[in-house]
């Protein structure tokens, strides 16, 4: 067991955890932040993507103890009160989701994508989603959603 203290969505959370507890399970089971999903066990699908210290990371591939002292942002922490984040707006406007299971991870990846490159080309968007799998949408509306957010100045 180990004591961890992680700032999640701006709130400091301390807990006694098993050292082998994955960050994704810490978020989902200890903090009840179930918006972060699990879609695989080999670190490919990206459904578990959150921001760790400001950059996208697969929370299924990080132990909670590794994140001790870190700042974590999950999908639940993205909107500004009632105001949706431009990427959330984009996904809604452009029908960027169907079953919605990949969506939180997709959006969190896109946050870093637009942070690094506020005006990406379509190809750059597609390449930037290499770490996120979606089985429903064929990606085209996801690309549109990110373009929508980029046009509204999300990355700036």
């Amino acid at each position, binding site marked *: 067991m180990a004591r961890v203290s992680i700032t999640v969505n701006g709130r400091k959370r301390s807990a006694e955890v098993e050292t082998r507890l994955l960050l994704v399970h810490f978020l989902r089971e200890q903090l009840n932040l179930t918006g972060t*999903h699990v879609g695989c066990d080999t670190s490919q699908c990206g459904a578990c993507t959150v921001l760790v210290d400001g950059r996208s990371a697969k929370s299924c591939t990080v132990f909670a103890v590794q994140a001790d002292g870190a700042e974590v942002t999950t999908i639940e922490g993205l909107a500004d009160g009632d105001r949706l984040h431009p990427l959330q707006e984009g996904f809604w406007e452009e029908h960027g989701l169907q079953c919605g299971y990949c969506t939180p991870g997709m959006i969190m990846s896109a946050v870093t994508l637009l942070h690094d490159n506020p005006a990406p080309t379509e190809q750059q968007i*597609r390449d930037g989603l290499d770490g996120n799998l979606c089985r429903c949408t064929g990606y085209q509306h*996801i690309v549109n959603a990110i373009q929508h957010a980029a046009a509204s100045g999300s990355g700036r």
Partner: protein
Amino acid sequence: MASPVLPKLVGQRVKRREDPRLIQGRGTYVDDVKITGMQHLAFKRSDIAHGRIRSIDTSAAEAVDGVEAVFTGAQIAEFLGPMPIGTPFPSPDHRAVASDVVRYVGEPVAVVVARDRYVARDAADAVTIEYDPLPVVVDPEQALTGQPAVLHADFPNNAAVGPLPSGTGASPKAVDDTAIDQAFAEADVVVSQRMVNHRLAPTSIEPRGVVAHYEPGKDAMTIWSSTQNPHILRTFIAALTGLGQDQVRAIAPEVGGGFGSKINIYGEEYVAAALSKRLGLPLKWVEDRSEAFLCTIHGRDILAYVDLAARRDGTVLGLKLRLVADIGAYNMLLTAAIPTLTMTMASNVYAIPAIRATLTEVFTNKTPTDAYRGAGRPEAIYFVERAMDMLARELGVDPAEVRRRNFIPSDRFPFKTQTGAVYDSGDYAKALDRALEKAGWEGLKAERDAARAEGRLVGLGLSMYVEVCGVGPSSGLPTGGWEHSQVTVERDGRVSATTGASPHGQGNETTFAQMLADQLGIPMEHVRIHHGDTGVVKQGIGTFGSRSQAVGGAALHLAGGKVKKKMAKFAAALLEAHEGDLVFENGTISVKGSPSSAKSFADVAGYAYRPVKLPEGLEPGLSEEAFFEPSNNTYPFGCHIAMLEVDRDTGEPRLLKMVAVDDAGHLINPLIVEGQIHGGLAQGIGQALIEEVAYSDDGQPLTGSFMDYAIPRASDFPRFELESTVTPTPVNPLGAKGVGEAGTIGSTPCIVSAAVDALSGFGVRHVDMMLRPERLWRVINGGQA
């Protein structure tokens, strides 16, 4: 009454209502369900493909701190019977947990109940099993020889079904080959090819999962499952746990994709329910992805010997299709029925005068197959379209023209094919023309030829498809083929509606609300659609076979019509008007021609629940239900065109252009329809280019995780170019056909045809999927594909 004029919503690109919760991480999927006292299950699974269990030692597992119980298959068999199937075919004994012989890698052998999923996994790993290995068979044609292994004693030579004949002159009693023999005798050309439509993993991004909660005090069970059909789940869970259907409530919470794989009722669900009842504890099981690759059904895996006979002018005279379906180790819910759909759809969009299809289904030491997006139809269309393409090449005719020559003319519907399908409506030439125009077919050919002149390997592919969906009349489905809906106008004028169609990404909460808002003349915000909970939705079948709009939507429309009719009676009493003269519009009910004589929708609703003067023959309240039984399936169709380049050095295929023209009849929400088609295209293209489930000769899965099984990424695709034509169906009041599977069915053959076209300079006629770079590289370098 100055309410704003409400726009008509049906046919509009309305934003989805399910999205706000999902984009904020507030959806509740099954793994998000938590119940006090809940324990977790983990399964110990076979790591060999075929063997007899000699011994199981669970003592170490039981000793793990936090373990509640460990059960072997033999122990479970004492209180859980064999798993039922949903088809009329004979089926071997299939247990949720094997007790005697294991027949594929991943088959459950023991189950652990423990405090949390970490402990459960530790304990499952601590179970030790000894097997006496048995010979393994993975090749279906070899399996049919009965060597080296027979999986089930009652099925000699591993033949699960068949040979089952279908087509011209075939009846259950006798087969008359005169017509088909004559067609081949008269033919100028015959193209023959063995083709494989290989095995796939459905791979919804949310794996399967279940929470079973039996409450001893109530003698009732609630079961949450990531399922496409909670009502069917309820039926089967009740049957196997010895409960009545009234004692079981099944809930499909938010479901993260299914694609057919979540139609089934799986062993893990039965075990969770049975153990919850036995232990009196809430139990959860959530599948790991590497379990999913082994234990969730696989799709396709049919090989075909195809012979197509034609005249020199391209007129097709006859088609022979000898099918061998590798169904894996057991029958699941619909397993045996899926390949029969391949026979049903063998005529595709063509008026083929003679068809002989024969189907054999075979057991092998692999994961069972069942419905995967398209389910039987993609196979048919693939075989026929590849053969049509080979015919075009053989005759030196444009692939579009060969197809056009054989279309069922638009004035011959309903059209009965030689394999017994009755197509409802169609205009295939229109779809072809729109696609050729949209793609710029002639220009593309010039572009391809110019690229070739530079030494590039560029090819074009075209395919036509028709598929059977919107299933279907009750005669064709053991569950019944209807759908149910109940529409309630609440006291405040808001509307609650239920649908038995249980969505998992299809957006029914939006499309169905659009429909009711239009039908009742109220804002869409006032309509709420309930689904996926047998405690709320009285009856239902579920979502598969692209049926939710065509059958579920139709039921909703009927129920909405009934409630509207009753409401009109109350309004007529209030307004002292004739009910036939009332107009439902903009949140009011008014008398036609005198708009000042009106009541708000809410006022009439309120009155219906406190009718101080109850109109004669009327009961209070506004809640009406309907079962819709379609008279037939629907048959959407379309034309897909692909342009593809193969890297001369590496054999890597790269999709350059993808055009899809689809006709699904009337569209309720074109935005959602586009999404469905995009997703379907992605899966169809994925099959052709990057997806394949592979096994070693000893039955070990070689694609057991995303490290080895690829599904498409965003960077694999160009922008898809879509268009639709609209040929309504007469079989339901909406004229809507269903669109969930279309993209998957049309795209696969045209990708392969494009690759063959790109490599035509190397003398190749056909290349089996998937188009692994190495396979294409071998063609380029003169080897066999």
